[in-house]
């Protein structure tokens, strides 16, 4: 195939897949309201997608908060502003690092697992078997996982930020000797609920939507072979990373202005 043709084919494939992904999303969304009638399925998925991700989110939040505390202190101390460390740590986490890093970790921990699970269900004919039994896989398999991801990610991001602040407190107040009262009061006065926390929550909801959509679509659309599932799992992590980082820039520009 000559290069021009190959380029054309790649372009067509890309747009075809994009269309398939959106039709897939539409079918998933139509099945989301029904999930509240099968709460056991949703609870199972909330456990495996959300609860089992808590450890990696907690540990990462703690270390990121501690590093922020350390780096922030050495910059702020030059200006005699080390008491603003609480504000700096909290704003960094709530506005940016919490939602973004949680989404990236979520893609690696839960997203890849969702893709592999759904892909393997396809390989082992579990999805066709379900269709044969007149049970819609969108309703039984895809929608509960999608909704679980959508609910879990904002909560995980909140946990990440909260533990991160504690990490910053531990380093700043516990190890470097900043006044504890100043740490908290600076944070309290400078972190706005709507401008900072609510915007961070909006970001994490958007990331949760996109990350879970990519994960379940890649699984459902995987070529039903060993190699197909492995490629789909890789694509989930890579595409989610690109999507989250790209969307983060757009959302930041919209929310915090400046452009």
């Amino acid at each position, binding site marked *: 195939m000559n290069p021009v043709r190959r380029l054309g084919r790649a372009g067509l494939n890309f747009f075809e897949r994009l269309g398939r992904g959106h039709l897939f999303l539409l079918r998933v969304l139509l099945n989301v309201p029904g999930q509240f009638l099968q709460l056991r399925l949703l609870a199972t998925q909330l456990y495996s997608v959300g609860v089992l991700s808590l450890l990696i989110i907690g540990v990462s939040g703690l270390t990121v908060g501690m590093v922020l505390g350390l780096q922030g202190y050495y910059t702020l101390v030059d200006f005699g502003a080390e008491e603003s460390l609480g504000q700096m740590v909290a704003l960094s986490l709530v506005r940016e690092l919490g939602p973004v890093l949680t989404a990236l970790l979520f893609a690696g921990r839960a997203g890849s697992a969702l893709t592999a699970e759904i892909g*393997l*269900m396809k390989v*082992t*004919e*579990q999805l*066709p*078997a*379900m*269709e*044969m*039994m*007149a*049970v*819609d896989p969108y309703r039984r398999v895809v929608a509960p996982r999608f909704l679980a991801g959508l609910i879990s990610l904002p909560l995980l991001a909140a946990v990440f930020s909260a533990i991160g602040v504690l990490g910053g407190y531990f380093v700043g107040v516990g190890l470097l000797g900043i006044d504890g009262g100043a740490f908290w009061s600076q944070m309290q006065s400078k972190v706005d609920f709507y401008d900072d926390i609510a915007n961070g929550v909006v970001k994490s909801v958007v990331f949760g939507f996109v990350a879970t959509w990519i994960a379940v679509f890649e699984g459902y659309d995987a070529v039903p072979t060993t190699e197909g599932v492995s490629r789909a799992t890789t694509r989930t992590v890579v595409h989610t990373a690109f999507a989250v980082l790209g969307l983060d820039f757009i959302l930041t520009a919209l929310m915090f202005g400046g452009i």
Partner: protein
Amino acid sequence: MTTQSLETAEALVELRQVSFGFGGRKVLDGVDLFFPRGKITTIMGPSGTGKTTTLRLITGQLRPDAGVVRVAGQEVSALDHAGLFRLRKRMGMMFQSGALFADLDVFENVAFPLRAHTDLPESMIRDVVLMKLEAVGLRGASRLMPAALSAGMARRVALARAVALDPMLMMYDEPFTGQDPITVGRVMKLIRELNDNLGLTSILVSHDVKEIMAISDFVYIISQGRVIGQGSPAQLQRSDSPWIRQFIRGEREGPAAFHYPAPDYVEDLLA
């Protein structure tokens, strides 16, 4: 039984002039197949000749490129999603791999269609599941997870699950492959009993000649997308068609090629 008499005997499933292809390769090329009510009909043929594809056309998982597929008088490709699901509730299919749900144990796998489509009380679901598992000899394995089953056992659980809703049509995709000789005998007996006692119509896809000849009422032989032979097992045994004889006796030499098309062997080695 000839094709004409099969058409007149009321067919539950019929495929007329059906063609189907994957990416330019024709898998089925204008085939006519009729599956009469209450009988066990087998589709036989070498690997990759469209046997499983035929089952998927019947269940509406695939749509034919040309021709008509009818089940119980309904044209499958004309049904909408809801209509297709209504029809599928009356069909059972035993997949080649078993296709058990890996996150559910044996009991829950068999209970799955009952829970999805009936409002039966738990005690009745339990009784139905245990009866179906007893029939396939796996009542004692009801709390095992699919990963703990052998391939043969998984297939038998899949059989119990497929008949859980007492369908009108049962389809078996390679039911004998990978089973030990004792189980093959039991599965054959089970297929026959289910068919006759419940008044089912059964369609088998297989290439285990000996078993097929013993169990089937009527056999189609498909090769390269076409029906190359059909008849009752006795008629096929007597057939003098070289195609049919090669397949039934498993002869390597004959009209059906063993080798994939290739350039001359000696030239290829010396190249």
